[in-house]
């Protein structure tokens, strides 16, 4: 299938600013799905609020545009009722780690088979360039004209410690790696997080004098290094990219299915076919 088969052409040109990195993530995501050969009717994309969340409108999957930060709660519900579907949840940095911080860590803890793509542009772009928990100490924003004194989260560290079983990071500059990591995350059985550093030339770039879209992408090339590289030891300020965690752990929906089977065996759940079985409070 061609790229055009995965998009809703009637909504193009898309509404993101010229040079916005979110478009590059959209591009990479389509190619990842295309290369994996997944039927677009087997994919559900659930997004929250923000620039990043607009991505669900442009893609011709089953899509839901939900509450700010709560996309993972909706996605959990869909996955639990239809475990055979592939769940994709694109989130902004604020959507994932500020407004939806609790949903994020607990979905990771459960290891439910959902793929989260954190589109990190380090700013709240849609509402006018306020600083987010990933803006970083010393950065400038419309709400931090004298520099931001908040220390940032590291999305990868949070995902790791919360229990995600696949954690990776890439940037919009590294387009082939970005596509490759999204492919790996979708294939992985369990909670997968891919953080993608994205550029916001309109707010973050302009306020922090990082230049236009391609200059910001050049900067991403300079500040990143492959995970475990020698360069990181020499310069600890470099941001690592690549796969950080890839482990097998019991997946939530599969475990829940086993619980249902056990309960059925014990006769705690009434069998839908025979109508027999003991009904206990809360389980009937």
């Amino acid at each position, binding site marked *: 299938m061609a790229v055009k088969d995965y998009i809703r052409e009637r909504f193009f040109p898309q509404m993101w600013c010229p*040079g916005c990195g979110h478009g590059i993530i959209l*591009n990479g995501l389509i190619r990842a799905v295309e290369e994996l050969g997944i039927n677009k009717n087997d994919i559900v994309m659930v997004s929250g609020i923000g620039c990043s969340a607009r991505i669900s409108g442009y893609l011709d999957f089953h899509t839901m545009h939900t509450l700010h930060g709560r996309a993972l709660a909706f996605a959990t519900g869909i996955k639990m009722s239809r475990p055979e579907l592939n769940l994709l949840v694109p989130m902004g940095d604020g959507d994932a780690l500020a407004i939806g911080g609790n949903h994020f860590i607990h979905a990771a803890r459960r290891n439910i088979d959902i793929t989260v793509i954190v589109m990190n542009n380090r700013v709240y772009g849609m509402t006018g360039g306020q600083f987010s928990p990933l803006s970083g100490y010393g950065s400038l924003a419309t709400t931090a004209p004298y520099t931001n004194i908040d220390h940032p989260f590291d999305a990868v560290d949070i995902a790791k410690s919360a229990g995600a079983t696949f954690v990776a990071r890439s940037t919009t500059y590294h387009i082939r790696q970005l596509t490759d990591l999204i492919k790996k995350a979708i294939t992985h059985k369990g909670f997968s997080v891919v953080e993608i550093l994205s550029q916001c030339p309109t707010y973050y770039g302009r306020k922090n004098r990082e230049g236009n879209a391609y200059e910001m992408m050049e900067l991403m090339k300079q500040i990143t290094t492959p995970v475990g590289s020698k360069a990181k030891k020499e310069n600890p300020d470099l941001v690592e990219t690549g796969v950080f965690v890839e482990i097998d752990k019991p997946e939530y929906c599969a475990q829940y299915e086993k619980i249902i089977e056990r309960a059925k065996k014990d006769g705690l759940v009434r069998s839908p076919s025979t109508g027999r079985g003991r009904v206990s409070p809360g389980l009937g």
Partner: protein
Amino acid sequence: MGKPKLKEHKINRRWCKGCGICAHFCPKNVLEIDEKEKVVAARPEDCIACKLCELRCPDLAIEVITK
């Protein structure tokens, strides 16, 4: 199988926003932004069909068609 050769650059001028990412990262300097702030293939004969422009375009506005 030989290397893919360029047939044409299919540019959707209605979708292009002229951000210049494709032109900047083109290894052979094939693309340019014109006076209407849209991309044009100024030197298509130099194109090596690496498709980096197509992969990085945020607006899905450029496609490299190969023979």
